[in-house]
């Protein structure tokens, strides 16, 4: 188990370095004249050249990357080119919002998908059909469309929630709760429907296995079979889907954050990318890759704990 974990961490680090270098190279060759974008169209060539020097943009690619990487190793992610903040501050201000949103959405997804998927698998019949149809509809409606519908109905017409986030400095849990409810539900709906499908098929597959028949013939109660044996065997499939959904949500949150004006990391990523604010983009990439690696590691560990076969292979 320890070797397994260490191997996973090592490959994570390799991935991190590779993605950083790749992103940096892509940004380097994007051809954006950042100094010009900062100074505007009335600045003289000399002023632009000076700004370029100031930002180190006159250096070759590898020197710039090493400079950046050296900073990262000493814990310094640099400073935004368009903003007064350091990259570290910027991310620390925004990460809690994005993570809270994604974690809440994924927990809701996990619970609801399991309940719906298992109910459909065990009861079959009309319940199953409703879940199946719901899955198709849910898959067909993108989260951001739901988000816009929610804002229109629940925020603007009914006034039950704020249309844009009210998470102000020092805001209490109530502000977080009312600000994150609509976005979290919007993100959950589509994830739940496809999650429930996965859980349903995994549970049905297990229910048809011989060991379930054996357990039944021994008189073990249905409830015990379902929760102690079937769920445990079906869990790895569900967990893997969940981890993929988590990563998908980190991407999807970008649009959701825009609609609800949530000052999260996705919003930051988009604005920094279009401005060419390389320090911020690199910071976002670094944090996102680290989060993805950690989530994958946790899922692998959970799968290993649930199913010893995984550990051996």
């Amino acid at each position: 188990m320890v070797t397994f974990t260490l191997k996973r961490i090592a490959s994570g680090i390799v991935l991190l370095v590779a993605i950083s270098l790749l992103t940096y190279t892509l940004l380097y060759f994007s051809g954006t004249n950042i100094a010009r974008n900062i100074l505007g169209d009335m600045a003289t060539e000399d002023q632009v050249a000076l700004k370029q020097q100031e930002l180190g943009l006159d250096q070759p690619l590898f020197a710039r990357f090493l400079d950046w990487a050296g900073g990262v190793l000493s814990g310094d992610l640099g400073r935004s080119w368009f903003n007064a903040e350091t990259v570290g501050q910027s991310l620390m201000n925004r990460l809690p919002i994005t993570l809270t949103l994604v974690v809440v959405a994924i927990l809701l997804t996990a619970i609801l998908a399991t309940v719906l998927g298992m109910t459909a698998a065990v009861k079959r019949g009309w319940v199953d059909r409703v879940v199946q149809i719901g899955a198709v509809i849910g898959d067909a409606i993108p989260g951001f469309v739901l988000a816009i519908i929610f804002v229109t109905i629940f925020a603007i017409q009914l006034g039950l929630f704020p249309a844009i986030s009210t998470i102000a400095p020092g805001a209490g849990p109530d502000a977080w709760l009312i600000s994150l409810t609509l976005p979290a539900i919007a993100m959950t709906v589509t994830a739940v429907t496809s999650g429930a499908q996965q859980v349903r098929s995994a549970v049905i597959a297990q229910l048809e296995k011989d060991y379930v028949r054996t357990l039944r013939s021994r008189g073990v109660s249905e409830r015990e079979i379902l929760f102690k044996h079937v769920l445990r065997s079906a869990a790895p499939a569900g967990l893997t889907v969940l981890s993929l959904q988590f990563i998908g949500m980190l991407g999807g949150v970008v649009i959701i954050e825009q609609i609800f004006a949530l000052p999260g990391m996705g919003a930051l990523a988009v604005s920094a990318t279009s401005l060419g604010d390389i320090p911020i983009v690199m910071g976002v990439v670094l944090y996102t890759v680290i989060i993805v690696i950690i989530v994958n590691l946790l899922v692998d560990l959970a799968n290993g704990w649930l199913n010893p076969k995984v550990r051996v292979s």
Partner: protein
Amino acid sequence: MKLAPLARVAAVTAATALIFTGCAAGSPSGSEGASSGGGTLNIGAVLDIASWDPSQAHVGHALQPYQAPYDTLILREPDGTLSPMLATEWAYDEDQTALTVDLRDDVTFSDGEVFDAEAVKTNLDTFKAANGRQAAQLTAVDSVDVVDEDTVQINLSAPDPSFTYYLSQAAGLMGSPASLGTDEIAAEPVGTGPYVMDPAGSVVGSQYTFTPREDYWNHDLQKFDKIVFKVLTDPTARLNAIVSKQVDVTLLEARQTEQADAAGLELLESQVDWTGLLLFDRDGELNPALADVTVRQAINHALDRETMLEQIQLGYGTVTNQVFGPESGAYVDELDETYPYDPEKAKDLLAEAGYADGFDLVIPSFVGLESISAAITQQLGDVGIRVQTETVPVANIVSDFAAGKYPVGYFFLFQGEPWVAINQLISTEALYNPFDSTSPELQELIDAVHFGGDEAGELAKDVNRYVTENAWFAPLYRLDQIVYVNPATITAEPQIQQAVPSIYNFAPAE
């Protein structure tokens, strides 16, 4: 000068905003004797503030927030008149290269430092040296001399007809000399202005809260008990915020007007930007056809401006043939009749120029420009000009124009003061003149404006005639600024040549 591309970048990108639910302010702040009607002014800002250091200040949307903590030397009235603020009087010498500025002697900075001639010198020197986002405004400044405690003389290397205007903009913002250039002032402004930042109510990238400064020298400018800037870069978030009354004023898009009107909000009418084609390659370096003025005129005749305005901008704008705005002083009414929509005439002109079979033309496009690009491709295609659209990342478009990569460009540009526009679009120094197009005749007209002092606007009309008749551009229309306010809470007056009103133009509703 123009903020348009950045604003548009922001418009198509992220949204970052926090809202401090509008509590209708408690006790009327420390502004004793103020003409304060009280209340909170919640502004839905399009852009985040890059830094509160005045040397990093910007224009248009991005100038407005600086007006809370900082005063400018000169105040620009809503109609563009320059009035005293920190400067009481100013006058040029005969050569228009030395500007003597008299200053108020009763002003302090919010950190207790005294505002005097020395402080002005430090500010202007710092602004120039910092090479910030509007460093271009002080390009002409050679040196600043302290004449006496409340007088400075600003020496210019050459006359700059826009210089006093710049002193009402970023270059005129005065920060405390004790803090200039430090990290502290980047995070928290220290000025002489009507309001001071409340750090407890502010988070970088999402909202900035200001409260009135107690010992401010002009209480007439402190009309609110609180001003909150909420950064809402996404247009949908801005619409939702103002419709649900979480902000009192914000900038929307033409397609959102119906919803805003239905919510009882009020449109503040003004025009700031023009949009259209810039026919860069007037010497035919990349595309020989464009060297012929009749070809450039044919392009102008081929465009159905009315229809494009109606379909793309839902009519929120005014078609035009010139790049100078009506308020610039260089605008010539009849020039707008130079190029009526006439595809037959366009074909005739092309044939006359030897392009009866048309020619190929590359035009760069970027995200958000799809429908305009399609319309232009169609209309130029109708007269035989075969357009190939090349998509360029938004962040690269200005530098690609500057580098002379394209013979023609479509863009949104600020319609400012004549001298600003000339240096942006027409002089050989101008970024949007990448091939340095000029002629002795034009240079003479430009020089006349340069040394024309108060006559600059009138003289710039000749420059305008020249570039319009020579079809340097193919402007489509001036865009209405879709600024909406909530009339139940505030009143506002548009600010000439500025994307959003100055903060002085807002007042609590009666």
